[in-house]
């Protein structure tokens, strides 16, 4: 019972009353499709952007977008898709280049520079240490444990972990930053020179715009503080909750090696998935736990800018870039890049020049909008923070975390597709991994293991168990769980394995197997074996004398058809008899092949040549 003095909200924030699984399970969004999930509006590190009109509930924004789209497509049938088509002729002349900066909230118990607890929806200003509120005289206290998810994230992104890294102050004034500076790692980040590979299965429909796998370099991964949450009360009042101040973030900066909007969107989605795989982050973009800024530029394909072009960490000859900040969904990433690319191309083709600006994007807009020009560029006056000691990471720590790093989705998919044990399709493998935080995959692997030991002596069936189990776990069992949360005890893996084994041994029909499955799913406590025995479900295949007597009976009944076959040579009518034999027997008892054989014998027809 809740104590009467606690508000519902504060009670809700005590974790023991929340379904932990639900908290962890944030369904990943398929590319370019909108989810009606509620996204709390956040503006971390807005660098003085000021309040924007996109503080409406996300759901309403999406509804407005859908309405607008419908309106447009009614007015101009066929024209609204133009900018989305890859066949845009301007793209043959202009090459797009994109670099991404991802900020992700780390999965830690405490904050970065104070031992206050991290929280998601706690009562405002209840998890604030003195330093978090920049109380004069307070000092930072680096929380070492925050390194664990940070290191895992960097290792999963194939980075080199720096033995020594330091923290710097990035100065700017904004109401969500009490100290007047953000503590980040500008000069010496803790991880450098990583990469992430995008495979065809990371794209919608399994088609990569680059033709095959593409590897994107990662310049660095750094740790930094998050800012406060702002609730806007129009017209100009901000309510501030400092619970989120100093929540640890990692910033992941890619090299400008992305050349297609879909690749950029897939890159963000992939990095988010990798971070979740290693438990470095728990909430994704849709919950506000991850946000992307993109840098967009275009250049003419056949003209080399050489030294006249801009360069970034070794990538040279680039056009002038603009930065689009605060993209809060994968769909927004893709659409904002397309809009900005088109804007820049139009500008350049019209004889203008692209300015180095900071721009913003709202879902449903046609173009990006300017937030800040070069004159308004902020001078952050980076300086090493003298109050914080350098972070020195021992090699044993790095080795241990690398060794115990959870297997990444890519490796799982490779195993499920390439290995003879499983032989799943790429699509099925990707689906299996995404379901139920990996619990479904774990269950599948257990079912396969049990089947393998059941058929260890029978190589032919042994090779088929992976695919069979895949079908049963994803389609049959998956179908039963459609509107319910997954539970591995509903149909224990041993029971499912038993059902599949019986089907593979042809002891029961497929249909009987499905019936058994739903019977167990609905709570029947008997073992599969017991149910089969009780309900007499075993297949009774016909013996040869039984085939013959059934066939003879049928042939007697339909003597006119027999005449057609023998005298008029209409041999295909034998199939009709086969069908009749099957219909008149218990399901699965009659095998079409054997039936046809017997019939042809009786009719004195030559046996059918089996196409081998």
């Amino acid at each position, binding site marked *: 019972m809740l104590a009467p003095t606690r508000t519902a909200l504060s009670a809700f924030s005590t974790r023991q009353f929340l379904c932990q699984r639900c908290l962890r399970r944030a369904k990943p969004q398929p590319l370019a499709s909108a989810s009606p999930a509620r996204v709390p509006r956040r503006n971390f590190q807005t660098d003085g952007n000021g309040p924007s009109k996109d503080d409406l509930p996300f759901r309403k924004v999406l509804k407005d977008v859908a309405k607008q789209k419908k309106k447009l497509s009614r007015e101009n049938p066929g024209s609204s898709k133009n900018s989305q088509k890859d066949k845009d002729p301007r793209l043959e002349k202009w090459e797009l280049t994109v670099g991404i900066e991802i900020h992700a909230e780390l999965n830690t118990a405490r904050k970065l520079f104070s031992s206050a607890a991290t929280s998601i929806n706690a009562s405002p200003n209840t998890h604030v240490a*003195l330093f978090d509120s920049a109380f004069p005289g307070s000092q930072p206290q680096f929380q070492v444990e925050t*390194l664990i998810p940070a290191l895992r994230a960097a290792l999963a992104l194939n980075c080199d972990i720096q033995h020594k890294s330091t923290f710097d102050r990035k100065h700017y004034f904004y109401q969500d930053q009490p100290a007047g500076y953000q503590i980040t790692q500008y000069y010496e980040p803790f991880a450098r020179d990583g990469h992430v590979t995008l495979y065809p299965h990371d794209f919608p429909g399994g088609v990569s715009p680059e033709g095959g796998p593409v590897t994107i370099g990662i310049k660095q991964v750094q740790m930094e503080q998050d800012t406060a949450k702002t609730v806007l009360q129009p017209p100009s009042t*901000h309510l501030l909750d400092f619970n989120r101040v100093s929540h640890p973030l990692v910033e992941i900066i890619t090299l400008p090696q992305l050349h297609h909007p879909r690749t950029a969107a897939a890159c963000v989605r992939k990095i988010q998935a990798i971070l979740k795989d290693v438990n470095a982050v728990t909430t994704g973009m849709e919950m506000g736990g991850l946000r992307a800024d993109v840098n967009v530029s275009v250049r003419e394909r056949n003209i080399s800018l050489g030294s006249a072009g801009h360069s970034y960490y070794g990538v040279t000859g680039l056009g002038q870039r603009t930065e689009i900040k605060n993209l809060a969904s994968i769909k927004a990433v893709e659409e904002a890049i397309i809009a900005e690319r088109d804007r820049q191309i139009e500008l350049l083709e019209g004889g203008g020049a692209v300015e180095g600006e900071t721009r913003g994007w709202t879902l449903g807009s046609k173009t990006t909008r300017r937030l800040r020009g070069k004159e308004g560029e902020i001078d952050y006056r980076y300086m090493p923070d003298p109050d914080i000691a350098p972070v020195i990471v021992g090699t044993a720590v790095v080795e241990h975390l690398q060794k115990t790093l959870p297997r990444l989705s890519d490796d799982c998919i490779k195993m499920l597709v390439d290995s003879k044990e499983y032989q799943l399709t790429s699509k099925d493998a990707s689906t299996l991994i995404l379901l139920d935080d990996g619990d479904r995959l774990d269950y599948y692997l257990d079912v396969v293991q049990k089947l393998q030991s059941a058929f260890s002596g029978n190589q032919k069936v042994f090779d088929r168990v992976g695919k069979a189990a895949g079908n049963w776990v994803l389609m049959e069992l998956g179908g039963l769980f459609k509107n319910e949360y997954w539970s591995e005890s509903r149909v224990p893996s041993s029971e499912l394995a038993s059902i599949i084994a019986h089907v593979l041994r042809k002891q029961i029909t497929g249909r009987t197997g499905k019936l058994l499955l739903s019977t167990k799913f609905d709570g029947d406590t008997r073992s599969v074996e017991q149910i089969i025995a009780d309900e007499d479900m075993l297949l009774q295949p016909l013996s040869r004398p039984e085939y013959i007597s059934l066939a003879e009976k049928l042939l007697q009944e339909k003597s006119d058809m027999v005449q057609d076959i023998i005298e008029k040579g209409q041999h295909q009518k034998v199939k009709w008899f086969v069908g009749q034999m099957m219909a008149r027997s218990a399901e699965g008892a009659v095998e079409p092949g054997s039936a046809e054989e017997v019939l042809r014998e009786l009719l004195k027809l030559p046996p059918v040549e089996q196409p081998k």
Partner: protein
Amino acid sequence: SSKSSISEKVHPKDLEQLLSTPSWSVESLLPPKTQAPKAPKISSQQLHHLLRLSALPPPENAEEEKKMLDTLSAQLHLVGEIQQVDTTGVKPLRAIRDETAVAEEEQTITLETLKDALAKETIVGKHYKRIQRNIDKVDATNVESWDVLGSAEKKSGNYFVAESERPLE
């Protein structure tokens, strides 16, 4: 600025004479009063930009501005003098802290340092093992239980209030 040469051998009888006249004064760090300082001229625009960056109030009148510019000029002269020192091969000092090898080893984060945090994780899964951090609430009352909103100039319920000058479009 005057440079003292300590490389000469000093005789005990010359010591008193050597020490009787100063060879260097901190005054050399300040701009000489008789000639223009070597520091570049700072414009009024630059001053205002710097004040804005630091969220400091602008000068109230021309006299105050002149005073600020003079002070800034003197400070820049001092910085210029310090920049004359040859620091090749000297790593910048960021804070007064022990930077010896022994200290570095003490500060290195090891598995021992992270032992407790790692113990709070569980491995889930039989075949597909995944890490899950134990997400039970931590007790942080020792740093969290103080009157957070007590010194707030403006508050509303449990929130701090900040007014923006620009109303929403």
